[in-house]
Structures are given as structure tokens and as C-alpha cells.
């Protein structure tokens, strides 16, 4: 008998249909992956099983756990099932723990709720759990508070809470999306270990095909609240039946159109030399020494005309700080940034204004990078004021329409507001704004990280096309190695404020010289690698 049996589950919240006829079974001890893009209903399926849906939700169908119908259980009975029979791991480790209570306290609570243990036995169980999730080895005791832990450590605490009462089913909802790639690999390995050791079934919800290809015994693909395909990984990815699966695979493996590398004698556009930046930290003791956090430590990067340079590193490595320095938004504590040979930070305000049209930027957040009160036309035209009187109203209008046209938007879109566009379209608007002054260089800081994989592919291809058409140089900043590999000629690898390795992208990725680069490459999930490994396993 199946451990979990979801039968014809439908869900709507208010008038909004969310899930439509979802059926899925999970057998004891197996790992089932659920993949799909945002809004496909993955998370809502998990919350339906836990009966933790938002107010106003209406459901139909049945959800059986060990033969017991959860849909008809009382709220009181559900409290005995949550945590005891089903453990849940969430996406946001930074906010998933109560900031004012110790981690030991929060784990102990989950133990006490379901297991009839005395105080000493609970404490012992907490110690065992901390050891089980690898925190004891990292020196994390039960008396620590969440803010004293890293994101990966917090996710380990959340996993400890989820397995505190030995549930037979673990549901992990995008458990690693918010984590750095090396931490992601550790947490996935831990989840797999824990589930195997406890004999628990694991439902892994993710947008990342490579992750499920690697972890799951069976995968369900969701689109618009329905399961469109369900199969074992090899069958699913080698012989996809549904259009959605094919679309997801194509988007994951898509490479943007090739752009020829610039000639070796192309002039240098930007040279950042030994750029340093530090923030003061509060003193540990009243008369203790002044402390500072070094965000950038003598970092040197350069970009040639027409070249695409990549900057890759994990969160907190200083990538964005470097971007802001190159954009002359923040003054560095040391070092220089030169554009076409002249020092940006030695310029007068008017000299800087004459350089700004040449360096533009695209940022990560497609929702936050527009003033919600401005029309798209006004947003895209904002940098044009730099051209001064050279840009009369007619010319201005022509340029805006031209930029919109370049990114595949219509002239009529100029009169609309950003909130009327989807995430992918918004990133097109951001790119239109960046090219409206016909710059020589665009600094793109995580431009596709907030987008679903199919939109990522489109935006990356758009950037490639613009490079071809406008001979645009790109400084492409990302934590995602596969994206950087696809769009850059040369790459810098950054770790805690320093460049640890740089060179031609192909060379660095195929023959990494630095241990950190190797660690990053090993940890990065890859669909092809996961499938090859599975094929090798079946042949054996």
C-alpha cells in the first residue's frame, strides 16, 4: 500500500483555481520529485497534504496517509500528524526559525509534542538530532540562537525539527533554492542520508531539473496546477512525453546564440585595479579594537570593448559591491577604476556625466528596479537626460521606441506601467533602459536569477543578440555557473572579496586551477551529469 496517496486533489483560493485533479502516490522509503515553474502548484500541493493552506482555500478529492484520509481529520488530529508522521522542510532557512528562541528549544518542542519523554531524554534526543544533521560537528550546540548560524546551518536545524519525531514522510519544498551552490550540495546529501537512515519517504519539490534527476526515484512534472507527466528520471528526461517536460529540458540545456569573441587587440573599456572596500563592524568589547569587514580586497578586473566578462561567486563574495564600484555608485577605499583610461573617481561631476551614457546596468529584481509610478516610456528614457540638449523630444521618442523594439517590446508598451508586465518582460524593459544611450558596456548583476528557467533562456539569448547587433561589452555577474559559462568569453572567480582564479571561460571551467573553482563546479547540479550517472548505474 502507498504511504501517501493523493487522489484527484483540486484546490482553489477565493475564485482562483490553484490545483486541478492532482493525483500522486508515494511509497514508503522512496524519493519522489515534483518539478515545475513558479505558480505551477508545487508548494500548494505540499501545504494541502499538511492542511496548512491559507485562509479561503477550498479543496476536493482525498489525501490518504497510511490509509487514513487527512482531508476529513479534525484540526486537533492534524496536529498529531504534522511533525509526527510528516516532516516539512521549507525554502527560506533565514526566516524559518523563531529569532528569539534557541535552536535547541525549537527542536525540543518538536520532540516533546509527539514523544512521551522526560526532560533529560528530550535533551538527549536534541543532542542526537544535532549530531544527526551534522551541526554537532560544526560546534553548534542547542543554546545557540538562529541569527548566530549561517543559512546552511539553519537549514540543518529545520531538518532536525522535521525528523525530530521520526516521521515516515519528509516533504522538502525548494530546500536549497536560497542557499549557495556548495551548501546546496551538502544539504541535499544530508536530506538523502536522513531519509535513507530513517527509512522515510522523501517528496522533493524544486524548480531545478538537475536536482530531481540526481535525487528522485520518480518525478512528477507540474504545470498550471496539474501533473502533466510522471515517470522515472531516465525515462522522463531521455524520452519526455509532455510538451511541458520538453520545454523545461530545452530551457535548461539551451545555449544562447554564439557571439564571436572580440579581437585580442580590442581596446580596454574598464580597468578596475586593486579595488578595496571595507565596512566598519561594531566593536566586540567597549574598548576593544576597531573591526572591519573586508568586502573587496585588492580586486582587479577588466573588460575589453565587445567582450563578455563573467564574475562568478557565492553570496557575500563581494560581487555586487564590485559592480557598484565599477558603476561609480560607491567610492572604493582603495584602488582605481578607469574607463577608457581615465579614473572615474578623479572626475568632476560633469565629466562623470559624459561617461555615464557609456556604462549602463541591469539589476536582479524585475519587480524592484522600476519606479511603480512611472510609465515604461519614462523608465526606459530615464538615462537619456545624460545626453542633454543633443536629445530633443523627437530624438528622445525615437530612441525609446528603438530600444523597446530591440528587446522585443512594442511602441504601445511605453504608455503602460511596469506592474502590467510579467517578470520576463520586465527584465526586457530593464535591458531596454540599459541600451537606450547605446552604451559600450552593460554591467548585469544577476540579471536572470529571479526568473524561471524558460525565461532565463530567453533573456540570455536577448543579451547575446544585443551584443551582436550593438558590439556591446558585458560584465555579467552571477552565482550560477552554467549561466556564466553560456554567456561569457572570460571569467573571474571570486571568493570572500578576492579573485581566486581568472581566464578564458572554457579553460577555467574545463581545467579549474583553484580548489574553490573546483568545489563550485563539483557542487553545481548538472542535468546531463546526473543522467549520465544514472545510465552508468543501470548498465552495471
Amino acid at each position, binding site marked *: 500500500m502507498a504511504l501517501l496517496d493523493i487522489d484527484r486533489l483540486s484546490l482553489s483560493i477565493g475564485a482562483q483555481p490553484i490545483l486541478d485533479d492532482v493525483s500522486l502516490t508515494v511509497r514508503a522509503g522512496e524519493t519522489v520529485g515534483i518539478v515545475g515553474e513558479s505558480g505551477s502548484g508545487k508548494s500548494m500541493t505540499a501545504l494541502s497534504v499538511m492542511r496548512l493552506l491559507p485562509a479561503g482555500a477550498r479543496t476536493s478529492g482525498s489525501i490518504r496517509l497510511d490509509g487514513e484520509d487527512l482531508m476529513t481529520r479534525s484540526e486537533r488530529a492534524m496536529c498529531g500528524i504534522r511533525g509526527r508522521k510528516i516532516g516539512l522542510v521549507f525554502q527560506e532557512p533565514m526566516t524559518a526559525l523563531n529569532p528569539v528562541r534557541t535552536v535547541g528549544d525549537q527542536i525540543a518542542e518538536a520532540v516533546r509534542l509527539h514523544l512521551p519523554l522526560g526532560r533529560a531524554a528530550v535533551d538527549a534526543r536534541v543532542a542526537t538530532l544535532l549530531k544527526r544533521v551534522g551541526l554537532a560537528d560544526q560546534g553548534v550546540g542547542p543554546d545557540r540562537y538562529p541569527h548566530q548560524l549561517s543559512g546552511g546551518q539553519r537549514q540543518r536545524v529545520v531538518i532536525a525539527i522535521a525528523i525530530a519525531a521520526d516521521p515516515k514522510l519528509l516533504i522538502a519544498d525548494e530546500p536549497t533554492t536560497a542557499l549557495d551552490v556548495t551548501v546546496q550540495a551538502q544539504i541535499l546529501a544530508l536530506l538523502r542520508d536522513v531519509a535513507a537512515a530513517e527509512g522515510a519517504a522523501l517528496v522533493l519539490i524544486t524548480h531545478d531539473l538537475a536536482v530531481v534527476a540526481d535525487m528522485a526515484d520518480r518525478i512528477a512534472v507540474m504545470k498550471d496546477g496539474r501533473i502533466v507527466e510522471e515517470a522515472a528520471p531516465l525515462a522522463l528526461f531521455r524520452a519526455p512525453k509532455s510538451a511541458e517536460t520538453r520545454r523545461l529540458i530545452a530551457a535548461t540545456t539551451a545555449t544562447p546564440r554564439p557571439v564571436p569573441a572580440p579581437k585580442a587587440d580590442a581596446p580596454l573599456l574598464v580597468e578596475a585595479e586593486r579595488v578595496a572596500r571595507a565596512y566598519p563592524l561594531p566593536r566586540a568589547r567597549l574598548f576593544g579594537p576597531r573591526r572591519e569587514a573586508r568586502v573587496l580586497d585588492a580586486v582587479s578586473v577588466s573588460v575589453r570593448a565587445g567582450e563578455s566578462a563573467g564574475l562568478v561567486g557565492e553570496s557575500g563574495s563581494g560581487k555586487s559591491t564590485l559592480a*557598484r564600484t565599477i*558603476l561609480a*555608485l560607491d567610492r572604493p577605499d582603495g584602488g582605481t577604476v578607469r574607463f577608457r583610461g581615465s579614473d572615474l573617481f578623479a572626475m568632476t561631476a560633469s565629466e*562623470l*556625466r559624459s561617461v*555615464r*551614457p557609456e*556604462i*549602463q*546596468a541591469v*539589476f*536582479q*529584481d524585475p519587480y*524592484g*528596479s*522600476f*519606479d*511603480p*509610478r512611472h*510609465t515604461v*516610456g*519614462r*523608465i526606459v528614457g*530615464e*538615462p537619456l*537626460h*545624460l545626453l542633454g540638449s543633443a536629445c530633443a523630444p523627437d530624438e528622445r*521618442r525615437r530612441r*525609446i521606441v528603438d530600444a523597446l523594439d530591440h528587446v522585443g517590446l512594442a511602441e504601445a508598451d*511605453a*504608455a*503602460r*506601467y511596469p506592474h502590467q508586465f510579467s517578470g520576463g518582460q520586465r527584465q526586457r524593459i*530593464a535591458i531596454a*533602459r540599459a541600451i537606450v544611450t547605446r552604451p559600450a558596456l552593460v554591467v548585469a548583476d544577476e540579471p536572470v536569477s529571479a526568473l524561471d528557467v524558460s525565461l532565463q533562456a530567453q533573456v540570455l539569448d536577448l543579451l547575446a543578440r544585443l551584443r551582436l547587433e550593438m558590439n556591446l561589452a558585458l560584465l555579467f555577474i552571477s552565482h550560477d555557473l552554467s549561466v556564466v559559462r553560456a554567456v561569457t568569453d572570460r571569467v573571474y572567480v571570486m571568493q570572500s572579496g578576492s579573485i581566486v582564479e581568472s581566464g578564458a571561460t572554457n579553460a577555467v571551467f574545463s581545467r579549474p586551477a583553484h580548489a574553490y573553482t573546483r568545489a563550485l563546479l563539483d557542487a553545481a547540479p548538472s542535468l546531463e551529469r546526473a543522467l549520465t550517472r544514472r545510465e552508468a548505474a543501470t548498465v552495471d
Partner: protein
Amino acid sequence: MSETAIDGVNRRSMVARALRHPSFLIGAAITLTLLAAALVSFVWTPFPVAEVVIRDRLQPPNPVHWLGTDAFGRDIFSMLLVGARNSLGVAVVAVAIGIGIGVPLGLAAAAEGGLLDSILMRGSDLVFAFPALVTAVMITAIFGPGAINAMIAIGIFNVPVFARVTRGAARALWGREFVLAARVAGKTRARITVEHVLPNVASLIIVQSTIQFALAILAEAGLSYVGLGTQPPMPSWGKMLADAQTMMAIAPWLAIVPGLAIVASVLGLNLLGDGLRDVLDPRLDRTR
């Protein structure tokens, strides 16, 4: 495309939201009534407000004196109308002082940060440490009691309120990517403040204004009650209450009427503020 093109859909939906919002409608109705009462009092009152007719003293409400008369035979309804003018006048000036000084300070502190920001925050801490009434007492001690000094005392307290609200919201905006994009577009801090920051904090300032307006009416009533605000013979709601207190046993309606006027005005303004908050910001959860 014109720079000022406004999407018609947006504005229409805002009006539609306003017309469907009960607190907004009730609040707006009360506030308009208050305003009308204040304006009418300039051209017409049933009786001259300062007219003392001892023969008619302490009449309960009746067809001639709709809300009765006080211990000097003055018509309560007339005093109420003029009192509305007085309350509104003090509140308008006090809020204007707060906005006029506080908002630019808050915008500048958010744009410049550093020393200016620290000075502003410490300065507002200092003003907040003085209970508003103590400030009023000190001002009165120097310049003597009066409506003008009540305006200044309440206004001084409003400055850090608006400065902090503006600064907080503006600082959050300065961290947003669209401000970063404007800086990449080479706009100066002053221009970004005018084009991006101020329009986006405006609705917050409007909502805060209604709250401070309500508080100012309460504060003016309190000051007049203890004799530090509007001076006789000019009637004010607080002074009417102070006079009524001694007559409680024989003429309780004297204390009820001005009190209800204060409660209604403050309630109306607060409802208006709650309503405006939802109407001006569609992203906000309406039910909260």
C-alpha cells in the same frame, strides 16, 4: 509618448476603491462636515458667540438654543461652530509646520545619510523626550497663553514625527533598485529625491497627516482645557469643557456636547486616514 501619461485604469480604480471603502466614506463625510461647520462660522452663527445674556443662562437644548446655553447664557451651538474653526485652524497650522520642516529634513537625511542623519535622529529623540504639554508650558511661560503658541507647541512636536516617517520610508526607497538605476542614469541625489523618492512617500505622508491632524485636535483641546490654548472670549472646545466641569451636577449636557464634537472629529480623521491608506496603496492588504 508624453512624460506625464497617466494610465486611466489606475486612477479610475482608485476612485472606485474609495467609493467602496466604508471607513474612507464615513471619515470623509465627518471631515467635510467639520470643515463646513468651520467655514459657516465665519459668515453665520445662530447667535453672536460672545453675547452674554444672563437671563437665558443654563438652558437645556430647546428650539431656540438647539444645544442649550452655558452659565453666561451664550449659545452652545454657535460656540461649537466657532470652536470647530478654532480646532481646525490650530491643527492645520500645526500639521503644516510639521510637514513643512519635517518632510524636507527627512528627505535630506535619507539622501545624504551620515552626519546629517545622525543629528536629525538625535534631535528628534530630544524633542520626543519633552512631553508635548511640557513644551507648551514652556512656550506659554515665555510668550503667554494663546492659540498661536498652541500651534507652535504642537507644530514643534510634529516636526520629528514627519521627519522620522519620511526618513524611514525614503531610506527604504534609497535601497531599492530603481533608485540605483536612476543613479546609473546619472541623476543627482536632489533630482532622484524629487522624481522618485517624494512621489513614492507622498501617500504615506498624507496618511500620517490625517493621524497628526487628529492628534493636533486632541492636543489643542487639552491645552485649551488647562487654559494654555485659545483664550476667551474666543470659544474653544477644550475651554467649553473646562467651564462645563463646574456645572456638571446641574447642566451635564454642557460637558457632553463639546466632548462629542472632539470625539467625532478625531474619529472622522482617523477613519479617513485608514481609508486613504488602503485607497492610495492597492498593494496593502485591505483586511488588515
